[in-house]
């Protein structure tokens, strides 16, 4: 028994020349439009990365990254985000099969992993501010809080979006519109993980050298 529900567009496009396909399905168009948004979002992060790269040495006599950052803490944050990226993929598989129970389950796991990432990040920020090493201490710390804080804000928005999507599945069901929005959410979530790769490499591991 074939329980796997394939994505319709992939069945249609099989074997037909590209020139005779006609307009792309709403699913492809929505994903492409959202992809353009994500790229512009990543350009915002590029500007923050550039600021960090330029200012990372400007500690104004304050603490350097090597004194402030704890690798074990960062590894935990990374593990949370990577695992949540995987569970987000599992949620999308459940959505494509229209299994609402599994979709709720995996979205709950994704949201919890995202929330634990945020909790770890918040405790790190709170520690630093409490020791007087807040964003106003030096240009290095300003750029650090701007970059990592913007990423954290994105994760917060992502969790709120996921909660809204679960409410929409509860009230509207698996309509094509709702599934498309959920697809856009998964793109957003995976893109945030890609930005985090840059953050832990440049900011946290880069502090060693």
């Amino acid at each position, binding site marked *: 028994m074939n329980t796997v529900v*394939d994505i319709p567009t992939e069945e249609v496009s099989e074997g037909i020349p590209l020139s005779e396909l006609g307009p792309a399905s709403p699913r492809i168009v929505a994903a492409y439009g959202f992809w353009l948004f994500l790229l512009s979002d990543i350009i915002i992060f590029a500007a923050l990365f550039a600021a960090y790269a330029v200012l990372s040495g400007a500690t104004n006599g304050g603490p350097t990254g090597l004194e402030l950052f704890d690798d074990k803490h960062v590894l935990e944050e990374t593990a949370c985000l990577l695992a949540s990226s*995987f569970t987000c993929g*599992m949620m999308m*598989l459940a959505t494509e099969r229209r299994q609402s129970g599994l979709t709720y389950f995996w979205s709950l796991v994704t949201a919890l992993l995202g929330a634990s990432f945020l909790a770890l990040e918040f405790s790190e920020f709170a520690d630093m501010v409490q020791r007087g090493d807040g964003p106003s201490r030096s240009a290095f710390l300003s750029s650090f809080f701007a970059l990592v804080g913007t990423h954290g804000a994105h994760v917060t928005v992502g969790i709120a979006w996921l909660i809204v999507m679960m409410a929409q599945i509860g009230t509207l069901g698996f309509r094509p519109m709702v599934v498309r929005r959920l697809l856009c959410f998964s793109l957003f979530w995976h893109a945030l993980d890609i930005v985090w790769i840059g953050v832990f490499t440049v900011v946290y591991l880069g502090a060693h050298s």
Partner: protein
Amino acid sequence: MNTPAPETGEADRAPGSHRSGRDRLRSYALGLVLAAVLTAASFAAASTNLVWGPSIPVLLAVLAIAQMGVHLVFFLHISTAPDSTNNVLSLAFGIFVVGLIIFGSMIIMANLNHAMMPMDQLLDLHRQH
């Protein structure tokens, strides 16, 4: 669901465009394993003494770019399939702009720092007026 199996075999499919649910599950699992290995390698490279010190930033950059590639292919499903041609093109443009912003800023600011008069000479200049 009695649709006949498509003529094209598995080998004809673009990498990253997996059809069946089991294929896609395998793709996510493989992506998770690869990303975890690359993350572990990054953290190990930063803290170990086994690698020649000055080469560590390059090693970290290579590992990060590899992991971003893994995420793009296995999680975001960017592939060479016709459906994602536009996505690949815009991604290339995005990478170009990101590189321009980051490396452009670093080059310009390093140049400015280099051309900047040392602070004591600058203060002398102020006192003369």
